[in-house]
């Protein structure tokens, strides 16, 4: 197993062992602290470009730091979402007067000097941010940064679960791995089916993806399999939310 594969497996295990939802998010944050040379981690949930609050964390301090951003309405996490890219702050002291005066002061008060905000996205939908905190100033090593980006990718799954409250994600045990599910969500037929659902249901891309994924889960299929059926018009979703088969049965390529 290469270092990268090993890391992927370890991050995934931390999340899988914990269960679903908040527990999985917490497990992932704890794994970040163990693996990435940081002192704390937290995952915030974003919707419609605005932060909805802290969703999981490695501990109390991280949760509090993360929540400061919502209290003050400023911070690297917000900037990471609006820019759609990582915001890396090796030393917050340098930024005190400039970018986030209130948040930076709160961080320094807690003795935390570095913060790295890594957006979590599925198919370009920014749904959350992984915030990593460290007491010592300084940049992340390239290895830690790419590991952090992987963790941010994985964080998308518990965040998506959160958006589908009526599904019991604890029952997920179809043998597919988190990485396989993420790959299945990022396929061309899923993008196309998402667009069709957006138009049909008059919803945004994230909600369309959430609906598609929930149906795939209910049917014990991959998102990709459900997407093919939608694209080939073998499956449609009623406005009242019920799925029904339609038209002639075709075959997926």
């Amino acid at each position: 197993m290469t270092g990268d594969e090993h890391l992927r497996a370890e991050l995934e295990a931390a999340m899988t062992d914990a269960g679903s939802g908040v527990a999985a998010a917490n497990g992932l944050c704890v794994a970040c602290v163990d693996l990435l040379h940081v002192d704390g981690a937290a995952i915030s949930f974003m919707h419609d470009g605005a932060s909805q609050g802290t969703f999981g964390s490695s501990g109390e301090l991280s949760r509090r730091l993360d929540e400061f951003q919502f209290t003050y309405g400023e911070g690297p996490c917000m900037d990471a979402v609006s820019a759609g890219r990582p915001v890396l702050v090796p030393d917050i002291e340098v930024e005190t007067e400039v970018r986030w005066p209130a948040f930076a002061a709160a961080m320094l008060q807690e003795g935390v000097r570095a913060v790295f905000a890594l957006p979590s996205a599925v198919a370009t939908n920014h749904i959350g941010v992984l915030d990593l905190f460290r007491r010592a100033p300084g940049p992340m090593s390239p290895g830690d940064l790419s590991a952090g980006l992987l963790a941010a990718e994985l964080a998308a799954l518990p965040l998506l679960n959160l958006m589908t409250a009526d599904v019991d994600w604890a029952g997920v045990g179809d043998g597919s791995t988190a990485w396989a599910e993420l790959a299945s969500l990022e396929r061309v037929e899923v993008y196309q089916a998402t667009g069709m659902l957006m138009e049909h249901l008059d919803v945004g891309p994230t909600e369309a993806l959430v609906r598609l994924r929930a149906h795939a889960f209910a049917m014990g299929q991959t998102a990709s399999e459900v997407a093919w059926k939608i694209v080939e018009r073998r499956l449609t979703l009623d406005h009242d939310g019920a799925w029904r088969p339609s038209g002639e049965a075709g075959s997926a390529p």
Partner: protein
Amino acid sequence: MNNDREHQVTEAFVSLANSLVEHFDVVDLLSGLATDCARLLDIAEAGVLLADRRRVLHVVAASSEATRSLELFQLQRDQGPCLECYRSGTPVVVADLGAEAARWPEFVERALAAGFASVHAVPMRLQDNVLGALGLFGREPGVLLTARDLSLAQALAHVGSVAIVHSSAAADRVAIAEQLQGALTSRVVVEQAKGVLAQRGDLDMDEAFVVLRRYARDHNLRLADVAQDVVSRQLPAQRVLDNTSHRSAKPPGHAGG
């Protein structure tokens, strides 16, 4: 090289090079690359695969729907010359696919059924990073590209790679990954917009793409920008559909849906 072909090769490079300085659309650019390869080289069709930050490959462009489908098949079955090319970072040349059934059983069966007999796959690379692979598919078994044509294909792939990353300052891995992600992002939005238009106008995905591209060209806009506006509902899907139906005098959409 005869004058006409020389002219075409020059045009292809000029078009790729211009994309480095002008605002350009990466999906359009790579579609152009695939079409250029199919036209300039002694092959039938071409397709482009790009990897995302998780090293998962995506089909970003193809000179035909059959090629897109074959490239997609390689990704789904996790086997085939283009995947091998991406993973090794070196060209993979197969003169006769029929002789390689043991190497890629499912891919070979599918490729032969689609009427393809040979493959040349060249890596899309930038410095030490392999970004993806350019697949060139021929219909005649045993017909290999000349060394000169293979170099031409590799050169086109190189220029395409530089154009994707589109920044002389993007020397480090993170910056390259970000640029690449940008390229894939616009692909996602284009596919979503196709879905919106397909649903609205009861079109298949190819028809939806034609409608989208025609609107972009008629209004001198970037494909990715039009797609973004469709997806965010700033541009009503019906207006994009009407643009094509007015031009072709074909009724918008057809019965059913």
